[in-house]
């Protein structure tokens, strides 16, 4: 039923091919999971991809078309998505407008909201995991680090999310975090779309904290109760939060609502950080320009 025509990528635990679904001629991507690599049987990332993509059907989440075994390899058949936001941000020949950014943010947040209302945390949101379909739809992809929202007393590893998009609670080593970590990542992606360069590019985990707090201010117990109880807190350089003016200068193209939108996603205290629903209902999406029609974005 499926052909593997061209190898387009290779990761630690999978090789990705382009192919065709014979019965419909539909272009697909096949993620062939290497089984020999993982000494403990099936790879955890593969199990997570399978587990969560099976449960999610949403226009802004990558579709798992089929799964099959072949020659002792697990193959995930996924919808074909030719490009991603990282490519678009980096390619300076591609011009995009604030309306385009608004459209991408809307679709991303709809996909993230759908995960969260199914109590699934993605835990690796970044531009190259936001793929684009031929008709311009953003699709949240790569659920290899996803997990269900745990039972309240469960302890979670803080070593998740690609460093530049990692929320402050994770940088501090928190083990009882919530889906708020995904919203922080979306906030950083928004900043990057406006700047067209990574917003908080730390070279290592410690520097990531410094870069983050230098840009957005070091949190204190006043605005984030008990933040000083994190063991890493004492080593911190204390920076003041940026003034509104400084933010305006940094994000000159951003409207007041866009700045509010970003600041609420990048609120240090995860308890006060906006949820996906609050983001979707924000003034940013109600003011002009309206989000571009995805299929019209070049």
């Amino acid at each position: 039923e499926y052909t593997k025509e061209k190898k387009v990528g290779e990761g630690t635990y999978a090789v990705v091919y382009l192919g065709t679904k014979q019965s419909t001629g539909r272009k697909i991507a096949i993620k062939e999971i290497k089984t020999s690599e993982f000494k403990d049987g099936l790879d955890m990332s593969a199990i997570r991809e399978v587990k969560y993509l099976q449960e999610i059907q949403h226009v802004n989440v990558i579709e798992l078309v089929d799964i099959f075994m072949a020659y002792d390899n697990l193959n995930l058949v996924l919808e074909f998505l030719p490009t991603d936001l990282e490519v678009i941000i980096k390619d300076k020949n591609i011009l995009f407008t604030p309306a385009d950014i608004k459209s991408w943010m809307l679709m991303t947040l709809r996909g993230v909201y759908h995960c969260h209302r199914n109590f699934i945390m993605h835990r690796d949101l970044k531009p190259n995991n936001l793929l684009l379909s031929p008709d311009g739809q953003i699709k949240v992809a790569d659920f290899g680090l996803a997990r269900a929202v745990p039972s309240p007393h469960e302890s979670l590893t803080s070593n998740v999310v690609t460093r530049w998009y990692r929320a402050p609670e994770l940088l501090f080593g928190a083990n009882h975090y919530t889906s708020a970590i995904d919203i922080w990542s979306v906030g950083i992606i928004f900043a990057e779309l406006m700047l067209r360069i990574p917003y908080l590019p730390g070279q290592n985990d410690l520097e990531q904290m410094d870069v983050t707090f230098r840009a957005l201010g070091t949190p204190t117990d006043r605005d984030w109760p008990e933040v000083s109880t994190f063991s890493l807190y004492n080593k911190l350089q204390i920076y003041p939060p940026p003034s509104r003016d400084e933010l305006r200068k940094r994000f000159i193209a951003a409207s007041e609502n866009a700045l509010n939108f970003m600041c609420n996603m990048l609120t240090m205290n995860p308890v006060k950080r906006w949820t996906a629903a609050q983001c979707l209902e924000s003034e940013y999406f109600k003011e002009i320009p309206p989000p571009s029609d995805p299929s019209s974005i070049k």
Partner: protein
Amino acid sequence: YRHSSQYRFWSFTPEQLEQKRIDTNAQAVVSVEERLSAFRDENNADLTEEEVKTLLEKAVPVTMEEEVKLVNFYAKKVQGIAQHMNLPTEVVATSLTFFRRFYLENSVMDIDPKTIVHTTIFLACKSENYFISVDSFAKKTKSVREAILKHEFKLLESLKFSLLNHHPYRPLHGFFLDIQNLLTGKVDIKYMGQIYENCKKRITEALLTDAIYFYTPPQITLAALLLEDEALTLKYLETKFKPKEEEAETETEVDEKKKNKKVEDKDNSPKEDKPESSINYDVLLSLILACKEKIIELPSVTMDDAKNIAAKLYFCNNPMKA
């Protein structure tokens, strides 16, 4: 829930479930019969009449009913081993669910239950983010890594790659809260705590019954609650789901409502613009009563039963031994 793989792939009517088991058994019987008659043909010359007679008696496929018994016997073992390993409640439940689903798609004549017990627990641990390396898992279960990993792919495939399970434990927590909300001031918290623990045990037992295929997790939870305290549960269900009669409200009820309303406003909890649920009280109650009947008939398979069936299974796969 209707979008979940649990509903799409693993919910059946009793008739569908019966048919599925019949088909799975029939398929295996065909291949076992072929193997056995081939065996008899190959060895025809060497077999005495007595031996042929014994073969025809002992080396025969197990029936669907016997399969169900053996699977239930081993399901209880899976639960026991997982509990003995002190795995979290949800992981134990997932292990058990994986094991039972596996034998809806496979016959015990294809894969002996003994060989899949550890694999289901191991995969459940991984799937529920309770990762244990295969070597430490092997040590804990006195098994070997090859045996644990051997059928992992087959298990995942038989599960139709559906790993996310909704168990009735979280709904129990939800109803524990909602009962406090609906019956404010009428329930004693300490007592509710006791009910909660008892219901957890009933749910753990219910996972061994076919109720998990016929009813949704919350329905199983409500059935367990009904068994624990019928009066409280009926009061809750009526308050929650029974259409309000037109009867004139007594003075106290009006005050009660106002107080609740004030409390809710203080709570500024989101006002739902739709009725809380379009659930039909009578239908729901009949479902829960039927589910209650289902979860109290726990499958009990004696060791002797299991041994006899296991012997039959052994001989039909090893006719020379017979």
